[in-house]
């Protein structure tokens, strides 16, 4: 993923569409993937539609993404978690707390 100047709309749209792929593949068996991807999606939706997002929520997203990325049972959740971590670190300007 390149890390040049990013259009926030494009980045959050990208995050959402990538996670949608993961959601579609998640089997529902292992807990971090099941809960984590769902919870992360909920926060990213807020980023995407301009709703208020707290710093705690974003911190939680990071922690969940790490947990899923390292601890999910199979590659589906692991890739999902790592994608989110990658996006968070490369486009920190997009994922800012908003009151």
């Amino acid at each position, binding site marked *: 993923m390149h890390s040049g100047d990013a259009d926030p709309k494009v980045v959050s749209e990208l995050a959402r569409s990538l996670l949608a792929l993961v959601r579609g593949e998640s089997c529902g068996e292992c*807990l971090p993937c099941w809960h984590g991807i*769902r919870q992360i999606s909920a926060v990213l939706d807020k980023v995407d539609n301009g709703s208020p997002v707290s710093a*705690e929520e974003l911190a*939680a997203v990071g922690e969940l993404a790490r947990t899923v990325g390292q601890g999910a049972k199979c590659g589906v959740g692991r890739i999902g978690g790592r994608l989110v971590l990658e996006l968070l670190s490369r486009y920190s300007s997009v994922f800012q707390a908003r009151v």
Partner: protein
Amino acid sequence: MGRVRLVIDRQAIEVESGTTILEAAARVGSKIPTLCYLEGINEVGACRICVVDVKGKKEFATACNTPVEDGMEVRTNTPALRAARRATVEMILSDHPMECLTCIRNGNCELQTLASQLNVRTVRMSGATHADLPCDDSTSGIVRDPRKCIFCQRCVSVCSDVQGVGAIELQGHGFEAFIGPPPNLKLDETRCVQCGQCALVCPTGAITEKDETDKVWAALFDPRKYVVVQTAPATHVTIGEMFGLPVGTDITGKMVAALRRLGFDAVFDTNFTADLTIMEEGSELIKRLTEGGALPQLTSCSPGWIKYVEHFYPKLLPHVSSCKSPQQMFGAIAKTYFAEKTSRDPASIFVVSVMPCTAKKFEAARPEMDTAKRYWNNSHISQDVDVVLTSRELGRMIRRTGIDFAVLPDDEYDEPLGISTGAAAIFGATGGVMEAALRTGYELVTGKTLEQIDFQEVRGLEGIKEAVVPLNGVNLKVMVAHGLHNARHVMERLKAGELKDYHFIEIMCCPGGCIGGGGQPIPTDTEARQNRIEGLYQVDAVMKYRKSHENPAVKTLYEEFLGKPLGHRSHELLHTRYVPRP
């Protein structure tokens, strides 16, 4: 098997290859937290709580199902692991009703314990998806509250693999997945036998027994009712666990004292009718052997097992003994013989059972279990057994009153329905009914005194046990199985015609027999089962009478009321029929 050397938390250890990281870590003193793991039964690695760090691996491994490898360096407690475990618990809690204070498992919940152990103090996420799922209380014995389900899949593994029933499964896929019966079906519309093994292994309150303690409180304080209680053999060595006593402690005397203090008018023992069962079932076997009838004869004490045969092997029902279970024999006798003997209105007698079992609730509610009503031709008489309490429910009733169970003095059962033998005591262990039947059958058939009354071959936790007992020139071939998965092996062989030379087969629905029943204190694991079984054999060893036909109260019952085993009145009160179920 080879040996593997590895390092866990800087401790070098050598273990057999094939050992899991979880087991190896326990040996160096590192207890890795788990949630979905159930030794030998559920090792699917679904919850990801037991994650560990293996040097050189980018991703965490689950300790419960990852075997050790030579040269492995494992860390079980790093900041990243602690964060991951806590995040996972937080995720679970974000979709879990925070009703701990009013939950039936409050204080004995593995999720609660884990959240406490991992120091989870906040839940930063919201958006529960299960919050609106309806409770399923369609069966007599078991309640499912899917809101509290954490997807550990222990119930699925137990139901499919240990019991071979498969009434609850992981249904659907991905984010719409849920655990339960097939969509749009309630539990009572499946082949669920209500054994309650799922309730026993559920880490939370998602599957529980149906609590009926309020009905018993109401009866106890109803002056029009004469409330009698019977206690199943397997409860004699388990209820103490709920009050901090060592697993397998014989608490018979304390339980009697507690029941009396709760206000029961008469405290009786299912062991009495266990002896009666042996008289009837033993006589039935002798009749089948001498006059013909379906052989081998299968035992009928376990209601989950009965429902299983009705669903899965209806064509083999003629093999099942027509004897009611001891619980139902008790109900019938209490409302007929005992009512008559004590000149009481049978409609005023309220029979409560204390059982190790959730399926007993189903059994008591079976429509044909209204013998007393038919005997007296009185529509005011209720079912033979009015309410069945599991061991756990009785424990909760005792707690609620503030009775200090552990220090209670031993009390004696009331007569006559409280008198029993060692043969009845061991009914609660797998092989116990068989052993009791052999002790009596041998003496009834041969007329000789049985010298060696301990039948070691039918004892213990092996899934299927066999023995051959010489009996008046005939070699009686017997078999014992416990857990429905083992029962299924036996039934498949029976169906294939491979068991034609066997005479008597004991089957108990739950692993270990009733001491491992679905209504027993939680946790019930292999070690608990072992200790409880030992407890029962100790009870047996010190009993005055150890053979059912020596029970003086049973003899009197036949003299005064029943006549003889398999007699007309026995058939009316103590025997039953079965129905094929889809």
